[in-house]
C-alpha cells in the first residue's frame, strides 16, 4: 500500500520536472515545444548507458544525461530562432517524430522497441537507491532542486529577458537583448533539466524503451502544463499530479470494463483540455485572461 503511494509520488515528481521545465520555455519564452519527450528520452538513454558502462553514480550518470540533452537541444533551438507560432510547433513535431525513429533504430544505444534492460539502480555515495520509498526521497529532492533553479532563473534578469522576448521580440532586441542567445540558453536549460527527469525515470524503472518518449508523452506533458496553468509556478505540478492520479482514480471504478479505462482517461483529459481552453485558457492555477 505504501509502496503504491511512493510509486505515485515518484511518477508525479518525475513528470512534474518535465512539466516545470516545459513550462519554463512555454510559459516564459513562448516556445511551444511538442518535442519535450525527446530530451526526457535522451536523458534516460544517456544515463542508462553511462550507468551500465561507466558508473551508476548519480554524480556521473545524471550530469552526463544533462550534457547529452543540452547538446542535442540545439537542434530545437534552431527552428526556435527562425520561426514562431504554428511553424515552430510543426518543427518541434518534426523533431519529435524524427527522434522516435532514431530511438527505435539506433539499437546499440537504445535497444529499439525492446528497450534497455536491467539498468542498475542509481548510486549515491555507495547507497543504491531503488526501493520506492527511498527513491521517493530522491525524486522529491531533485524536483525541489529543479524548482529552485527554475524559480531563481525566472526571477532574475534572465527570466525578465525571456518574458520580454515572449511579449515583443523586436522591442527586446531594441533594448540590447541578444534574442537568439537568450532563446538558445533557455532551450538548453529546459532540455538539460528535462534530462534529469529521464535519468530518474531510467534508474527507477530499470527498464526504458522508445514508447516512453513518443509524441504522446510530449502531448501529455504539454497537457499537464496547460491544464495546470501556463507561466505559473504551481500550475505544472498541479497538472502533473492531476493527470497521473486520474488513471488510478478511474481504475477504482469497478463497474467500468477494464479495457475501456485507458480510453476513458484519454477522453477525460482530451475534453478537459478543450473545455479549459474555452472557459479558462489560463489553466487551473493561472489567472484569467487579461483582456
Amino acid at each position, binding site marked *: *500500500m505504501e*509502496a*503504491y*503511494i511512493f*510509486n505515485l509520488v515518484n511518477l508525479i515528481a518525475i513528470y512534474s520536472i518535465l512539466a516545470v521545465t516545459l513550462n519554463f520555455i512555454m510559459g516564459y519564452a513562448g516556445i511551444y515545444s511538442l518535442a519535450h519527450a525527446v530530451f526526457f528520452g535522451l536523458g534516460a538513454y544517456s544515463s542508462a548507458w553511462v550507468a551500465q558502462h561507466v558508473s551508476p553514480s548519480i554524480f556521473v550518470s545524471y550530469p552526463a544525461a544533462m550534457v547529452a540533452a543540452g547538446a542535442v537541444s540545439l537542434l530545437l533551438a534552431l527552428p526556435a530562432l527562425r520561426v514562431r507560432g504554428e511553424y515552430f510547433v510543426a518543427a518541434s513535431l518534426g523533431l519529435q517524430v524524427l527522434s522516435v525513429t532514431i530511438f*527505435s*533504430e539506433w539499437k546499440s544505444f537504445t535497444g*529499439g*522497441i*525492446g*528497450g534497455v*534492460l*536491467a539498468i542498475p539502480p542509481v548510486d549515491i555515495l555507495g547507497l543504491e537507491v*531503488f526501493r*520506492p520509498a527511498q527513491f521517493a526521497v530522491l525524486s522529491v529532492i531533485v524536483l525541489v532542486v529543479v524548482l529552485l533553479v527554475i524559480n531563481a532563473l525566472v526571477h532574475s534578469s534572465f527570466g525578465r529577458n525571456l518574458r520580454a522576448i515572449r511579449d515583443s521580440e523586436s522591442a527586446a532586441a531594441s533594448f540590447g537583448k541578444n534574442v537568439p542567445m537568450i532563446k538558445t540558453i533557455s532551450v538548453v536549460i529546459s532540455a538539460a533539466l528535462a534530462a534529469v527527469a529521464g535519468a530518474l525515470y531510467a534508474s527507477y*524503472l*530499470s*527498464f526504458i*524503451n522508445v*514508447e*516512453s518518449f513518443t509524441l504522446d508523452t510530449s502531448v501529455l506533458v504539454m497537457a499537464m502544463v496547460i491544464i495546470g496553468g501556463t507561466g505559473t509556478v504551481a500550475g505544472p505540478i498541479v497538472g502533473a499530479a492531476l493527470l497521473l492520479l486520474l488513471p*488510478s*482514480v478511474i481504475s*477504482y471504478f469497478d463497474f467500468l470494463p*477494464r*479495457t475501456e*479505462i*485507458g*480510453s476513458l482517461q484519454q477522453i477525460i483529459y482530451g475534453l478537459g483540455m478543450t473545455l479549459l481552453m474555452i472557459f479558462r485558457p489560463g489553466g487551473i492555477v493561472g489567472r484569467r485572461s487579461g483582456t
Partner: protein
Amino acid sequence: MTKTFKQAAAAATLACLALPALAADHTIGALFPLSGPNAVYGDVFMAGSDLAVEHINADGMLSGPMSIAYEDSQGLPQPAVVGMTKLVNVTGVPYTLSAFTGVSKAISTLGQRNQVVAVNGGGVGPDLAALGEYFWNVIPLVNLEVRAVVPYLTEEMGLQKMVLVYIDDPFGQAIEGELEAAFEGTEGELVGKFSVPVTAQQFSGVAAQVRSAQPDVVYIASYGAQQIQIVKQLRDNGVDAQIVSYSGYITPDALALPETEGMILTGQAVDYESDDPVTSRFVTDFKAKYDRDPTAYNVNYYNATLLYGLLAAALEAEGKEVTGENLLAKRLEMKTFDLVGGTVSFQDNGTLLSPIEVKQAKGGATETLTTVNVGE
C-alpha cells in the same frame, strides 16, 4: 474549498487507495493486451486463464478463492512495466502471467528483483529462455517452430527462396536470427529481409520490394492486426508466392481473412483427443463455455494458471507461505505436472518442450500437414 469538502475528498481518496487490500485470498497477476491493436490476443489468453480459475475454485484446490488481477499491457513493454510495478507493489502478487516477447523481457527484471514469478504462454522469442529463474515459459519458443518449418518448406515443398517480412521489435529480430540459422547448410536461402515498424499499416511499398525479390515463399513475423494487413496487402499488390507464418498468426481474425487461405502455419501440437482427465475436462468445458474449439493459446494460459494452483496447493499442504520464492522452489522440486496435453516437464531453463505441427489454412481453420519433434 470548505473544510468538510476537503475531509470528504481526503476520505474518498483513502478509500480508493485502500481497495486493493480487500482482494481475494489467492490473487495472481496477468499482463495481457486488453486494448490496442493486439487486444484480440487478450481475449484469447483470458479465455484460457479464466477457465482454469473456475476449475481451481470449483475443486476447492486452494484455501481461499482464487482470482486474477488483469493489467492492460497493450502488448507493449512500457505499459507492461507500469502494470507489473502495480502488481508487484500494490496488489502484491507472487505470480503473474505474461505474454509477448517485448513485454516479457521488460518485466523480467522487476520479477527477478522482487522475487515474483512470471509465466509466459504467448511470447515465443527465443531469448525468453534466458530471463532468469523467475521467468518460466509454458510455450515452446519460436526457434522450434522455425526449425520445424524450414526443412518442410525446402524439402517437402521445394520452396527454396524465402523473403522475410518482420516486425522491428525483439520478437521480429529473434525470428530473423533464427531463420538465418535455420537456412545455414540447406538448399534454400533467405533472399530478402524487410522490417516494418511496430505501428505501420501501409505495406504496398514493402509488397513491391518483396515482389521484386522474386521469392518462392514469404515468411511473415508480426502480430495481431498488423500481420493481417501485411498478408492482405501483399496479396493485393501482386505477391502470389506461398506465405508462411508462425503460431501467433492462428487467431480467429486472421483465419477469417480470405487471403489467409492456403498459408502454411506452425504451432505447438496439442493432443485434444487425449483421454487424460485434465485434457478432456478442459476440452469439454471450453467448448461448453465459449462454443468454439480451443487453440494452443487457450491451452497455454489454462496450463499457466493451473500450474499456480498445483504449486500453491502443494505449498499449502506443507503449511508454507505462497511466495514467489517458494513457488520457484516447489517447481524445481516437483518437476513434472499433469497439464492439458499430458504430463509435461520443464527444461532446466524454465521452458517446456513440445512437438510442433506444420499446418495449412483451409476454409477458416487449419489442417495439420505433419508433426515434427524438434526436441534436443
